[in-house]
């Protein structure tokens, strides 16, 4: 092997070592963080707590919903509110099969939070109901709204008037 080739190989090896060590150090310093959205229900005073549990039919209730985007990229979110029962409850893979009572949409950049009021008139009486808030997002690949698997619910009894 000539000296010229040896020189080139040495420099190439040096480049590879520098590049790989830079990559390792950057991965160590800035580890990949888990990406997820946050959905929360707040009471009438915009704080966690004081949630209505027993209401009379046709009562108006006001709640606040908070959505936080920690997905690492801008997202187009939809919040759907449904009045579910034990048989129509949402889970992390399937949304509730109950009818949507209310829907709002908003675009959030990474790290942004969106808080908005939800006013509902409880027309359907029942016990052990679940006022369910589901988080959906617009998917660019399917060009449709998809369920994020994130949901929260409030147990609610609606007494017939």
């Amino acid at each position, binding site marked *: 092997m000539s*000296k010229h080739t040896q020189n080139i190989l040495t420099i190439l090896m040096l480049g590879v070592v520098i590049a790989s060590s830079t990559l390792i150090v950057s991965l160590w310093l800035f580890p990949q963080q888990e990406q997820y959205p946050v959905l929360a229900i707040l009471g009438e005073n915009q704080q966690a707590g004081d949630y209505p549990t027993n209401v009379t039919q046709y009562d108006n209730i006001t709640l606040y919903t908070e959505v936080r985007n920690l997905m690492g990229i801008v997202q187009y979110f939809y919040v759907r509110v449904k009045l579910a029962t034990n048989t129509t409850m949402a889970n992390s893979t399937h949304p509730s099969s109950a009818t949507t009572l209310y829907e709002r949409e908003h675009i959030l950049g990474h790290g942004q939070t969106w808080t908005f009021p939800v006013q509902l008139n409880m027309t359907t009486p029942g016990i052990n109901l679940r006022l369910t808030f589901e988080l959906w997002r617009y998917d660019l690949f399917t060009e449709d709204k998809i369920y994020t698997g994130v949901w929260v619910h409030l147990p609610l009894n609606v007494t017939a008037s």
Partner: protein
Amino acid sequence: MTHKPVHLIIVSLILVFILSIGPTKSLAIAGFGTDATEAQQAINKAQDAINSAFGYMVEADLAGAEISDFVVSLNDAIEILTHAQAAFNASNFTSATELADDAKNAAELVGQQAQSRLLETRINAAIQALITISIFVVVVAVTYLLITRWREQKRKREQSLMQMEIHLPNQEDKGETDE
């Protein structure tokens, strides 16, 4: 042949009936339906424009561009579209169409701006990459030259050392010196 006039009369009566009832009814439906259809089409177009603008925004965000102003503008367009949908639900089709058109225009503007910023960001990234590669190439070239020069000098030094005549003091010289 005798049945022909009878047929003509029947056909004429049917035509008269259709012309007297049909057009009035269809026009009435058309009058209502056109507004509703137009409004629905305007809403759909506005939604498509919002989705499209969102797509460009995602691309710009992924490229590392600043998009917070687009987020605000596109949320405004969404809000206008929500009002358009509310007007549509209230059968106020003219207002729904106008609002949907406003939402569409706002979303299209965001889409165009996001595209421009995406392009700008990509050009900047390409320039940065070019500068980085150039610096790397220069560093490698300088290192190569330095190593080559150093080896050359080392080789010359070794050669000159090999060519040097070594004069060791012999025994006689040593004796003379001792005396």
